């Protein structure tokens, strides 16, 4: 009852975000299919790509194998898995926003007291998110078809992306029933999705012998729909069954718990604060510590995995001549070295930037700001207490990753050099987030995330040759780039660090002059 009114409410509240994420993912696919022909102009190049490049372990782990040597197959191999991640991320965030966040903020009670069925809010949120992904499928299909790709493969790619979103939404629907808070629910749902993603990667990495592993997780089914390569449509049936089962579980769990509570009963905390919980810095550490430690542990794990398993494989692979065209594009003589740096760079730069920006923008989401700043805590101190973590935790993340890389050949200094060189670039991103928060009372978060999206767009544009070398230098990461575009010496690193400092100062100055958004 009244689910349709709730659906209209969600559409109204998300009238900007919904179209924005759908169009962004579609745009990502459209740019890929529009430029793939330039990257792989000849049939020979594509054959080489399908047979050689995609045997690379890191590519298998992150992107999956190529299911053909057509243009469409190459494009779907390169970006297909990424579209599932984007769709899942957006779906998790939106589903949690309209279920658990509403409960946390008391809006759910208001709705629940009206003539609304018990499950109506969950139904409405699921309906909107699932439908949004269906729209995404249609748009991706249209984008591919209009680029001249065959309809079958285009539709398969659209359904792959939508399946990512559907699985993400279904995981989130269960997670919001189990955890205590919205933030935890989103983290759990996305971590599970990403774990599935890695399981699929390990399966592809292991070759036919490990193929069964990929069949255990939805991400395996999604990729094995074989877009542009003799499509296996029935794998989408598995996805639908999986989503239906999770949604059923979510309703069952939802009927067994109280509004605002998780399934796990809340524990009591200490009656007194420990000595460490002191001042703005102690509070910031307490706010960020779980996330920070998880990121550092994850980085050590991925770094060690790459160091122990990947490095030799990548180097052997590099020497095979498969990477010569990459070497030409990036202007180097030694394809093995550059490829390893490329892999580390691509893994580290945007994920750690994401962490840094998220940490800074926590300033905006902090609801207890009014109480905190009525104490003798200056705005500058408050911002710096969070910024310190956005600066220091990336250091720890990249050092952990660098040491992990060194495990392979015992060259710890080399591992650290590859990872830590990007730090000043990360700091610039954190500083941009501070400036966005300081200068804009409402639009801070949007501006901060747009900055990250622009650097990704510049990177992708440069890779496919749409963005010139000179223009790419706008991005802080162009200056610490793996390619010969950059030769980051002390001067560059100090320059970037000074830029970050200057941008931070602008943000702090702005914040000292504006009203707080309370």
């Amino acid at each position, binding site marked *: 009852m009244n689910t349709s009114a709730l659906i209209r409410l969600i559409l109204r509240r998300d009238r900007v975000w919904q179209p924005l994420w759908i169009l962004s993912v579609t745009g990502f696919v459209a740019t890929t299919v529009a430029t793939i022909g330039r990257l792989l102009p000849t049939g020979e190049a594509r054959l080489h790509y399908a047979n050689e490049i995609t045997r690379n372990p890191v590519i298998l782990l992150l992107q999956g194998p190529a299911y053909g040597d057509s243009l469409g197959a190459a494009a779907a191999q390169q970006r297909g898995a990424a579209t599932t991640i984007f769709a899942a991320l957006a779906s998790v965030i939106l589903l949690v926003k309209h279920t658990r966040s509403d409960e*946390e903020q008391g809006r759910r009670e208001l709705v629940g007291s009206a003539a609304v069925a018990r499950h109506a809010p969950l139904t409405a949120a699921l309906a909107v998110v699932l439908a949004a992904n269906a729209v995404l499928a249609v748009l991706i299909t249209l984008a591919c078809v209009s680029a001249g790709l065959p309809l079958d493969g285009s539709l398969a790619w659209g359904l792959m992306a939508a399946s990512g979103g559907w699985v993400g939404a279904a995981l989130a629907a269960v997670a919001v029933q189990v955890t*205590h*808070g919205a933030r935890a629910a989103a983290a759990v749902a996305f971590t599970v999705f990403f774990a599935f993603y890695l399981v699929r990667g390990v399966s592809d990495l292991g070759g036919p012998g490990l193929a069964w592993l990929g069949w255990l997780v939805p991400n395996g089914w999604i990729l094995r729909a074989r877009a542009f390569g003799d499509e296996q449509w029935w794998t989408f049936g598995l996805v639908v069954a999986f989503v239906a089962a999770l949604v059923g579980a979510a309703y069952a769990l939802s009927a067994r718990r109280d509004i605002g509570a998780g399934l796990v009963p*809340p*524990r*009591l*905390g*200490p*009656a*007194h*604060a420990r000595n460490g*919980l*002191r*001042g*703005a810095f*102690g*509070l910031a550490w*307490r*706010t960020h510590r779980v996330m920070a430690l998880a990121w550092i542990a994850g980085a050590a794990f991925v770094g060690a995995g790459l160091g122990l398993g990947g490095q030799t494989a990548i180097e052997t692979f590099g020497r095979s001549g498969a990477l010569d065209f990459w070497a030409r594009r990036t202007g180097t003589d030694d394809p093995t070295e550059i490829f390893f740096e490329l892999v580390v760079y691509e893994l580290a730069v945007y994920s750690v930037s994401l962490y840094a920006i998220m940490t800074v923008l926590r300033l905006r989401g902090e*609801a*207890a700001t*009014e*109480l*905190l*700043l*009525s*104490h*003798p*805590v*200056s705005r500058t101190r408050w911002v710096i207490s969070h910024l310190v973590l956005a600066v220091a935790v990336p250091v720890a993340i990249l050092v952990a990753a660098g040491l992990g890389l060194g495990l392979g050949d015992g060259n710890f200094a080399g591992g650290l050099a590859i990872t830590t060189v990007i730090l000043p670039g990360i700091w610039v991103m954190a500083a941009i987030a501070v400036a966005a928060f300081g200068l804009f009372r409402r639009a801070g978060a949007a501006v901060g995330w747009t900055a990250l999206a622009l650097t990704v767009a510049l990177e992708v544009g440069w890779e496919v040759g749409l963005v010139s070398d000179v223009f790419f230098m706008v991005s802080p990461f162009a200056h610490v780039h793996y390619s010969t575009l950059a030769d980051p010496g002390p001067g560059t690193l100090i320059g970037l660090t000074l830029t970050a400092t200057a941008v931070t100062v602008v943000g702090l100055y702005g914040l000292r*002059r*504006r*009203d*707080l958004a*309370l």
Partner: protein
Amino acid sequence: MTDAISIHALTKNFGQVRALDGLDMTVREGEVHGFLGPNGAGKTTTLRILLGLLRKDGGEVRLLGGDPWADAVELHQRLAYVPGDVTLWPSLSGGEVIDLLGRLRGRTDSKRREELIERFGLDPRKKARTYSKGNRQKIALIAALASEVELLLLDEPTSGLDPLMEAVFREVIAEERRAGRTVLLSSHILAEVEALCDRVSIIRDGRIVETGTLGRLRHLTRTSVTAELARMPSDGLPGAHDLVVEGDRVRFQADTDHLGEVLARLVEYGVRDLTAQPPTLEELFMRHYR
């Protein structure tokens, strides 16, 4: 006596909306000052300007001898604030929040803390996300009261408390007054203000429309009188407003300044019974909002 807070011609706009429109207010040191007004009149905006969280657009504001915007950090060592809508850090326990806030201010009286937790009946071990509105308010109140500061700024601090806790709140504020602290109590619970405050300011649409002691405010307005008379006044009662005659009873309002003259006229008609009620704060308040 010096002024803890003095505000002159304060203005604040939010875009097109004028929230404060030339507000004047003075809070003297050592007094409990009631800040009355309905929702949206500008009480919270005024308090947030006093805290330096919002920037004034015009006018003069002095707080404890300093500028609330420029000297915010120094001033905050000497005051405590309880927001109207208390939001805490969801994963911290109540006890942790109270200790953290005390340490931020640099002062904690742990004996006072335990005493207040006891009096307000708070379980400090619960996670902040599980507290009700009233309990979150208690945490902010305990943290503010345990800090032994000169000035307390309280924004509708009892709006979530039950009557029992409201009584505890009144006791505690009375103690604070005896200890010489200054309190600015924003409220729309008139009985609370009447019980606690030395002086009140009434705000309407971003301006103070009335300020002074309750006695003086009462003086400005009318007393309602009901009397039973031996015979009815034939030609009305000069000085009596809204006169209603019901059998041998009359009801009317009299200007407090002219009460004596009206009563003298009543005596001429043979008073058998008389009740005179000073205006309640509610009437004072309503007078400005009708």
